[in-house]
């Protein structure tokens, strides 16, 4: 019985410890076996399992299992295995150990039954994942990693503040439905929102993910944002604000994605777009909508992982990832190209691919619940997804103009990992019932009706037609080596530009004030220095010199006395004379 209550993150942390002290083939075996064994264990754990103990008057539920957390638990295990396989050739202890710890933290977070446990894993996610960025070992990656870490830890601090408020009000830290009502719920909402890449808070995704190592980005894309989606689905389903936030998230990144040159950054933007669909689903909050949101998260981990893997393979083999520097790679990497196109078809939601069976649930829910405007905008962004992720990624990497790069297929483990993800994408698309049986609600939804298949196919083919037409008319914006401004401009350019002069002025004023003050202090010190023990006025003198001074004084006194005496005698003489004169006068009378 105790085996079922073994928290699912424990095998990952043990695996990471073993990986730290092993080498070579043994370590590779540990890396691959950890998610497999942990996943097999998780399959035996029934919904409703709870491992809890008391801590400072609060019930800590370190491991609480229900259908929603199990779904995320399963996909995190699959993702961890695929990521590990994809990164198997890497000989870097830092990446491999932090990769396992990171996956373990994500698993721990989705099985956290109380807010305090969630907070611990929330912060662990940030701290363990940043090494996947720093492992690139360039100055750019170092700085991007620092920015990433600051934002992630900030999210954790806000979460902690919210938890403290929440515990004070509710006298409980159970992680359940919260809903937007008081300060505590807003703080927790914002903390989730940062990790979920809400608009204006999204920039860490597009800033940091493209700077990570080719394999590190695949890890990053799978876990952090999906944990946030899970947390929102648990705590804020049916919050109408999320519909608006989600629609904005689905729409604005596709514009950036069209003009972005770094293909992994394009994928990062398209990731925000996909999370937008999930957030809309959570915001609508009906059984169908939440099902759509979490199943889309499940599928997104697979197809976005597949796309990031294919671009990671390109970066690994060519050392380049900019659309303007790639092209024609289908000639030498045909297998990678085909696998990439499977991912592209899945994210674009072609019938028979995984995106089709989950995205449509959110769309239908939007229509059924009176969000017609949201549906129209989501439809637009669904067409846009195909445009930037479905066509642009494979086209500029593998086709377009021939860049002259001649390379080979990536290592076998990379191809194998991509193949697994691709097979899963198609399998879920062809047989969605397998995924639907894992969903938290039973809605009897069927994606394959004639209307849906026809309309979706029409939408996508005419998006492709638009791409072809724009290219033939030479209206399509060429890939240019460039940087596009986003929210990060505020904290990378504007704040330094304002704050640097401000601080310069501040330091100048500070210097002046301190100068005045120091002059005052120096003056006082000068006075004191005359009176201090060694000062000029309180030095200890030799008694001999004192005697000289005394005798000198006495001599002067004597001299003065003598002068005085003489004058006194003269004065006295006159008076004596006058005095003596008096009796004579008397006598004379």
């Amino acid at each position, binding site marked *: 019985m105790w085996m079922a209550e073994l928290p699912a993150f424990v095998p990952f942390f043990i695996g990471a410890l073993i990986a730290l002290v092993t080498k070579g083939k043994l370590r590779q075996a540990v890396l691959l076996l950890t998610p497999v064994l942990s996943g097999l264990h998780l399959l035996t754990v029934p919904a409703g399992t709870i491992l809890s103990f008391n801590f400072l008057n609060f019930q800590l539920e370190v491991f609480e299992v229900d259908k929603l957390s199990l779904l995320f638990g399963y996909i995190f295990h699959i993702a961890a295995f695929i990521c590990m396989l994809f990164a198997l050739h890497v*000989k870097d202890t830092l990446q491999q150990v932090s990769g396992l710890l990171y996956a373990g933290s994500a698993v721990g977070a989705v099985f956290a039954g109380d807010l305090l446990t969630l907070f611990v894993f929330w912060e662990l996610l940030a701290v363990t994942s940043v090494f996947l960025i720093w492992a690139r070992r360039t*100055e750019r990656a170092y700085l991007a990693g620092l920015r990433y870490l600051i934002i992630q830890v900030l999210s954790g601090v806000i979460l902690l503040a919210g938890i403290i408020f929440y515990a004070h009000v509710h006298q409980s830290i159970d992680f359940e439905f919260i809903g937007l009502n008081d300060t505590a719920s807003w703080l927790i909402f914002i903390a989730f929102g940062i990790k979920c890449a809400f608009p204006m808070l999204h920039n860490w995704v597009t800033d940091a993910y493209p700077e990570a190592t080719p394999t590190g980005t695949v890890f990053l894309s799978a876990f952090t944002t999906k944990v946030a989606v899970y947390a929102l689905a648990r705590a804020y389903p049916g919050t109408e604000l999320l519909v608006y936030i989600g629609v904005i998230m689905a729409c604005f990144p596709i514009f950036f994605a069209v003009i972005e040159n770094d293909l992994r950054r394009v994928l990062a933007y398209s990731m925000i777009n996909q999370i937008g669909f999930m957030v809309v689903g959570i915001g609508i909050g009906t059984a169908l909508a939440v099902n759509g949101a979490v199943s889309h998260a499940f599928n997104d981990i697979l197809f976005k992982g597949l796309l990031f893997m294919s671009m990671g393979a390109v970066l*690994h083999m060519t050392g380049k990832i900019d659309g303007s520097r790639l092209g024609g790679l289908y000639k030498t990497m045909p297998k990678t190209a085909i696998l990439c196109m499977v991912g592209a078809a899945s994210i674009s939601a072609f019938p028979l691919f995984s995106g089709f069976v989950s995205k449509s649930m959110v769309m239908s829910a939007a229509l059924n619940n009176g969000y017609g405007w949201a549906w129209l905008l989501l439809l637009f962004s669904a067409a846009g997804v195909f445009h930037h992720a479905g066509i642009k990624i494979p086209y500029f990497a593998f086709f377009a103009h021939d860049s002259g790069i001649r390379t080979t297929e990536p290592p076998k483990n990379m191809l194998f990992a991509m193949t697994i993800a691709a097979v899963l994408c198609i399998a879920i698309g062809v047989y969605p019932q397998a995924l639907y049986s894992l969903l938290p609600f039973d809605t009897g939804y069927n994606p394959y009706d004639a209307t849906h298949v026809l309309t979706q196919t029409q*939408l996508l083919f005419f998006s492709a*037609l*638009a791409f072809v037409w724009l290219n033939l008319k030479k209206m399509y*914006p060429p890939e240019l080596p460039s940087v596009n401004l986003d929210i990060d401009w505020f904290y990378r350019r504007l704040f330094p530009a304002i704050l640097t002069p401000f601080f310069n002025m501040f330091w100048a004023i500070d210097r002046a004030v301190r100068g005045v003050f120091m002059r005052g202090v120096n003056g006082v010190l000068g006075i004191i220095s005359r009176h201090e023990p060694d000062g000029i006025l309180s030095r200890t003198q030799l008694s001999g010199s004192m005697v000289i001074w005394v005798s000198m004084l006495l001599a002067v006194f004597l001299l003065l006395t003598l002068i005085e005496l003489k004058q006194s005698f003269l004065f006295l003489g006159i008076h004596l004379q006058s005095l003596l004169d008096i009796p004579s006068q008397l006598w004379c009378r």
Partner: protein
Amino acid sequence: MANHESNNNSEKKYLFDNPKNVKRILYGLYVCCAVLVLLEFVIHRHIYHSWEDLFAFYPIYGFIGCVLLVLVAKWMRTFLMRDEDYYDKLEKKQHPAPAKSESTADADSESNQAEQKQGGNHVDG
């Protein structure tokens, strides 16, 4: 696609080196698009939203949506686009002197390679 490390002159022809194959793909796309529109006459669509009443709503919406998307994004470049080293020259401590205006394609790819060597390379191997 076995041996392709050889010279450019003797390199084998690949699938899309032949413009005819590109044409074939494009014609395939056009035919698919036409068939999909014609299918509207055969398949009765369920209508959930008033806009869907319009004949060929999805093809029109998809096409116009994408054209607008690209044109707006292109316009956004006019005020969002900056040099590649826009942030680097401020943030990186050991940033090399910014490359001169790269006129020829040769110089372009050369400096790119240099940059990749210096900055953007992967570490695993």
